[in-house]
């Protein structure tokens, strides 16, 4: 095994560890800040860690027709999002270039959604299926945004390599980076939807369909799903930061990790603020909203092709 491979493996491992450690903390910050906005005291910052630990020991109720599928869906969900963690840069450049490029990354993110949907389908409850439907519809309409953002980068740098694309490549146009700036705007106003928080937590809408696909899950399975949700917040933030806010590297790995995480935290604060000041949209309203953004992003793609 070559030295390069070992570095890739270690880098990926480091990312997984970072995400596993940091994700509940970010969630804690989100909850605390939400509480503050709502004039509440809020739970302690490490409450999410306790929640996860507690859930791991709770009774594991399986209500679907095919429990093995329910289990598999949970494992797959966790595995998919952590694989994505291996591919996304945290501080230094993207570590595990050897296992895929940005196209693989995009489809791995989809895989994470697939796992949630399989979970909903396997649970079989009517509410789960409604939730799964909504999840799928938002995935269909949201995915193109992320795809265009990454593809614009890939077109600018003539490469799909993670370490080249996930390094502010959207601004690497030959001319003035119009496309990158447009996508920055588009991704900013759709970011909430990627991390599935209010006003776009439609698939899980607690007051309508009672957590949708996750409704039938409890105990350790719910713990993992919750962990995945928290990880999604960190990973999508990291992805956004890597694509659009690449500046401020010092070259010192631990310091870079901290800087990167600090940028992610800013994203989380933004998510919290938006979530606390909005009502949940309806599915059809969300689809129209995404469709508009998809239209804009296709224009951006057109500009990118011509070097802007």
């Amino acid at each position, binding site marked *: 095994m070559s030295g390069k491979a070992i570095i890739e493996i270690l880098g990926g491992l480091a990312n997984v560890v970072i995400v596993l450690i940091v994700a509940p903390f970010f969630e804690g910050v989100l909850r605390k800040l939400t509480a503050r906005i709502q004039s509440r005291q809020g739970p302690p910052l490490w409450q999410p860690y306790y929640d996860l630990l507690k859930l791991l020991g709770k009774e594991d109720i399986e209500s679907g*027709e095919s429990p093995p599928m329910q289990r598999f869906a949970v494992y797959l969900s966790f595995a998919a999002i952590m*694989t994505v963690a291996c591919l996304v840069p945290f501080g230094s450049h993207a570590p595990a270039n050897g296992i895929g*490029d940005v196209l693989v990354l*995009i489809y791995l993110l989809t895989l994470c959604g697939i796992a949630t949907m399989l979970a909903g389908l396997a649970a079989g409850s009517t509410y789960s299926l409604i939730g799964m439907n909504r999840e799928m519809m938002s995935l*269909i309409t949201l995915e193109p945004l992320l795809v265009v953002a990454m593809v614009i980068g890939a077109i600018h740098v003539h490469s*799909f*390599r993670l370490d080249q694309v996930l390094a502010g490549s959207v601004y690497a146009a030959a001319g003035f980076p119009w496309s990158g700036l447009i996508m920055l705007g588009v991704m900013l106003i759709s970011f909430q939807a990627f991390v599935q928080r209010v006003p776009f937590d439609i698939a899980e809408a607690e007051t309508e369909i009672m957590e949708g696909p996750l409704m039938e899950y409890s105990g350790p399975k719910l713990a993992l799903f919750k962990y995945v949700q928290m990880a999604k917040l960190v990973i999508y933030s990291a992805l956004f930061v890597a694509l659009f806010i690449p500046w401020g590297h010092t070259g010192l790995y631990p310091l870079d990790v901290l800087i990167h995480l600090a940028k992610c935290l800013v994203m989380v604060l933004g998510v919290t603020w938006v979530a606390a000041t909005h009502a949940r949209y309806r599915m059809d309203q969300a689809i129209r909203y995404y469709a508009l953004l998809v239209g804009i992003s296709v224009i951006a793609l057109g500009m990118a092709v011509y070097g802007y």
Partner: protein
Amino acid sequence: MSPEHAMVAAMLLCGLGALLTGWVASRRTLAGWIAFGCVAGSSLLTFHAVARVLLYGPGKAFTFLTVPQMGFALRLYVDGLSAIFLGLIATVALPAALYSIAYLDHYRAYSVRRYYPNFLLFIAAMYGLVSTTDMMYFFFIFWQMMTLTGYALIRYEHDKPENLHAANKYLAMMQIACAATMIGAGMLAAKGVTGAVNSAHLIYDFDTVSEHLPLLLREHPIQVAVAFALFLVGFGIKLGTWPFGQIWLPDAHPAAPSPVSALLSGVMIKTGVYGLMRYFLWLVPPEAKADYPMAMWGAIIAVLGTITLFVGTTQALRQHQTKRLLAFSSIGQGGYILLGLGACLCLLASSDARLTNLAAFGLYGALFHTINHGLFKSLLFLNAGSILHATGTQDMNKLGGLMKHMPFTAITALIGSLSIAGVPLFNGFASKWCIYVATLQADGAARFLPICAVVAIFTSAITLALFMKFFGVSFLSRTSSLVAAQAARQPSLEVGWMMRLPQLVLATLCVGLGLFPMVALSIIHHALQASQQGFGTVLAKSTPVTWGLWRGAQGLGGNAVLAPVALVMVVGLLIVLARALTKLGGAQRRQTVPWLCGYARETYQNRYHADHFYGALKRYFHWLGGAPAKPQRPAPVAQTPSPPVNPA
């Protein structure tokens, strides 16, 4: 034995089988085994031919039969391109033949005399079609042989008027396609030219036409353009391209018995791909590039492909009949292949080395996707057949919870679904990856290709939605009343081993090619090396993609990476970690029923219908048409012939 001889032998074997099975048709199982034996034999011969071509390069074209006065010759030539399609036909025909034996129990009311002979001749015709060099007579003969036997197979269940209607539409469309292609060939006929192969006045022979084409292009560009347009229409109809495919394909594929649907969708429509590739890339010599409006044809095909993939897939979203859904999705998947081919043509128009490399990448993608679609779509049709066999319905509204009753079929169907949806680690992703890489980095005259690619990526999410519905509704969700009734009638709903084995083989191939795309890529590489004619020579020179076990496939000089083996290790390890995490707290497991807000007990009325899926999204695609099949006659349980108790 030379590849060409092997192919003639294979066809003769199929013909012999047709006679034999027709003779012993009263003994259904025996006829089935004879048919399977013939298919196995012919497949072995085909594999031999394919292996020879790929390993040692193509032999010489072989003329079996000549009628010199008419320019009439059975001249066969198996090069790399043909080899890929022949291999695919043989690979899919084998499981389909085995599957047929048990599956036809489903059709006790119909004689197998109209099934096996047609089935065998159908396969033979496809073998002939992709290996003949005659663009006129033998093309006609093989095409008609394929069309007529296909017609008989589609109307096999002739008691249902909708099947007759579907078969008639199929027949009409195929005749139009045949006519278009032949008129096109006639316009390119090498009249008055004598060349190396033309001593026998084979003016419609591929090689002759190819030789004559530069002259024709220079002197009659319009005539050639019309001919190529006719080819596009003819083969487009066959492939099911928008807007032609919607006319016949969604009706014909579901009407046929499932193994035949698998063949129709998996391989027969691929002969259209073969024709397009052969005529648009291999027919034109690279010297004539200046006169050949390659970029234009590429753009047309790519845009047509993009429209096809989008329209076909979104139309499939509206279906609730298993096989009809699969048929529409076949149209959509054909679009991906067209996109790859169009990108190749477009990019090849420029002489830039980087773009030529991308062009080759596009063709790799198109060919790879052809293979993949052949595998996973046949698999999915066999899955749908197993469902039909077990429950007697294609209507997904009436299905649910089958995973508990037929776990084997469920897992293979999941593999098929994930493959077609383009999930990493499965074969569909690998080929789509090739197409995306080629199209997204397109430059120069092909700057529209990235937009097409984004549409394709968007559509692949819709494909995912489609197959989450197909798989989820049929196998997960909640047990439907129909499934419960069927399960109560027999010890197990799972199909017997003769139907499971074909599904297993195809599923294994899907996973195998997904994890080791280098196998397929290297086959395609060898195939292109063995097809040195027309632009094939240009394509053979470029090596767009390199591969290795751990580093996977790498394109664009390492700028595009897909390493499934490494990826599967990571995902696998993380799944183990996830499992360990869930065990950590020592949580007890308990089984119960879903929560329904605590008052009403669950009934079949609580099931989420297949019809209701993606309502908010489907509303926006109504203008695309593609109405779902009308509801079937009521009470399917009572009316379908009772499925036999499984042998297993």
